[in-house]
């Protein structure tokens, strides 16, 4: 005898179409009418895009190390930042700058990090936020741990983590989902599906209809959202975070977007994906549609746009200056690699630190 014992579904959310009009005026959520918030976030998205172009340029001219661009992810990223409270905890992967800017991380700190200086990780964002995380998907378990800490301490805080379409294949992410379910943790796990994991397309990660359904594995509410639609991202994130905060457990959200840039500046995406795909993806990018929407609703115009871009360029230039000043005029001494290993330097490192210092003074360089 057969008996169906469980049923599940994945819903997809989109409110703002690529052409900048609402899918359905009557069904649009309240946030679609919160123009102050939308304009504020549009400005941050724009700043992020200007920053991004500058960072790539810095790398091309040898002033920055490898850099991972966030081009095309701005709506999704900014929504993550905007939906969180300061006391919530963000465990990012490595390109969610807009979320971090919203939370207080400075552009110069992002540059410091990619500029090969650990001080970038000692950023101005919430001090309980995690730094950028290179080992893919490991951050998801750190977020689960943070959520567990909040739960144990009865604090009304939520942990949020982001993983890529590629990273969602990794056991760390899948175990984090399970942990969220096991302890009903205040945890929001976001799969940033930008269709590519370096050169590996989404279709090679697995053959499932969605990535969101990974949450079903552990019985978590799981949904897809148009990651280029700020309104949908905000709506989904606001709801998930507040539900998590109020004790309703963990959520899995797949944000569907597109990596418009190379994977990082060390990558050349033309080697593995057709130009047409990228061109087509540009049609759906998040800034243009939001701008159209704001213009259509009379809260944005050409002048504002021009002023904003000028402002962004200025802010970015100032950040670059701060960054370069830091690494050129105030570089870390060799001893910095010792001084943060432990709260108190153990005896063996005291000796090695002395040796390193001596060598630096002798100008010892490779």
């Amino acid at each position, binding site marked *: 005898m057969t008996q169906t014992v469980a049923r599940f579904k994945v819903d997809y959310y989109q409110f703002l179409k690529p052409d900048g009009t609402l899918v359905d005026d009557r069904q649009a959520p309240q946030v679609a009418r919160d123009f102050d918030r939308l304009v504020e976030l549009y400005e941050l998205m724009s700043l992020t895009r200007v920053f991004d172009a500058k960072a790539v340029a810095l790398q091309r001219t040898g002033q920055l190390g490898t850099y991972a661009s966030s081009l095309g992810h701005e709506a999704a990223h900014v929504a993550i930042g905007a939906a969180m409270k300061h006391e919530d905890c963000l465990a990012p992967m490595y390109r969610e700058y807009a979320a971090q800017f919203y939370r207080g991380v400075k552009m110069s700190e992002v540059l410091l990090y990619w500029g090969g200086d650990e001080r970038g*990780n000692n950023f101005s964002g919430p001090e*309980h936020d*995690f730094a950028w995380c290179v080992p893919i998907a490991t951050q998801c378990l750190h977020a689960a*741990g943070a959520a567990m800490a909040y739960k144990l301490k009865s604090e009304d805080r939520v942990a949020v983590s982001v993983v890529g379409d590629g990273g969602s294949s990794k056991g760390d992410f899948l175990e984090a989902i*399970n942990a969220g379910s096991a302890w009903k943790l205040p945890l929001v796990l976001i799969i940033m599906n930008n269709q590519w994991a370096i050169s590996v397309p989404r279709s090679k990660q697995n053959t499932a209809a969605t990535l969101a359904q990974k949450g079903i594995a552990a019985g978590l509410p799981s949904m897809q959202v148009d990651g280029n639609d700020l309104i949908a991202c905000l709506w989904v994130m606001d709801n998930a975070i507040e539900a998590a905060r109020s004790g309703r457990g963990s959520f899995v959200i797949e944000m569907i977007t597109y990596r418009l840039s190379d994977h990082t500046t060390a990558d050349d995406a033309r080697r593995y994906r057709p130009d047409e795909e990228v061109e087509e993806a540009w049609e759906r990018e998040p800034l243009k549609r939001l701008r159209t929407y704001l213009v259509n609703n009379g809260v944005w115009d050409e002048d504002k746009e021009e002023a904003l871009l000028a402002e962004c360029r200025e802010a970015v230039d100032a950040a670059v200056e701060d960054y370069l000043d830091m690494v050129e005029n105030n570089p870390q001494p060799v001893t910095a690699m010792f001084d*943060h290993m432990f709260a108190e330097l*153990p005896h063996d490192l005291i000796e090695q630190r002395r040796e390193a210092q001596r060598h630096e003074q002798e100008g010892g360089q490779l």
Partner: protein
Amino acid sequence: MTAITLIEGVTMALARAMEEDPSVVVLGEDVGVNGGVFRATAGLHERFGDDRVIDTPLAEVMIAGMSVGMSTQGIKPVAEAQFCGFTTPMLDHIMNHAARLRNRTRGRMSSPMVLRFPTGGGIHAPEHHSESPEALFAHTPGLRVVMPSSPSRAYGLLLAAIRDPDPVVFMEPKRIYRWVKEEVEDNGEELPMDVCYTLRDGDDITLVSWGAMIKETLQAADQLEAQGLGVEVIDVATISPLDMDTIIESVERTGRCVIIQEAPRHCSVASEIAAGLADAGIWHLQAPVKRVCGYDVTMPLYRNEMKYMPSVQRIVDAAQQVLEVS
């Protein structure tokens, strides 16, 4: 004050630490109601409840990764790996995050957590239950690695580990969990985590070991002493940072050194100690530095495990070889 075993020293330290610091939580597989497969957490669940003594799903990556996460947010996780062989899936989070968080963030964040687990062979357990992976942890910058060999050191060092502001790998030599009883006062006094412990003084030869092999090392020392020799026995106990000074100071007097460990030899803690002697200790050496180790093979299943581990005889043989050199 009653006489307790090494594992009771562990339990006593856990209880003490949980009592004095409400942020301390114990987590792992079967650590709750069951009290741990070796009973190391026995009684803690009853005493401290579900929120402090946490049975986890069966997922080591998760245990390690969540411990890292918790440790950054004001909780002090004392995570148990059920056996040494199951720490391998934890290495990613321990090596790539716990050991690095403070340095990565220039001190903004840190990962004060303890990973404790039973280690070593000799209890007739299945595969992956009897390994000695201390070298893997000791090779990783940013970790403290500790292995007590007595009830009092288990108590004092575990307290120190839990109170330490940085991640500590605390390895428990399960073969001697119940070997001897010792009077240990539950006075909350910790022991230093950066010195070797000299168990016996002697001027003819230095035997260096740690963990369960201290048992055979002391027995070998007995045999050698019966021959009228002065045997210094050093329990390394704190493997990282390694207190080479104590060892070199001893070899300065004895001129001869045998290092005994259960782990395989290649690129091991024994190698590190011998290398330290080949550098700063070289002028004191009157004989080759011998390492008596597990062979460089997989720990055998239990019928042959005792043939894998250094025997008293192998230690005595090595010592005699070293002593014969004039």
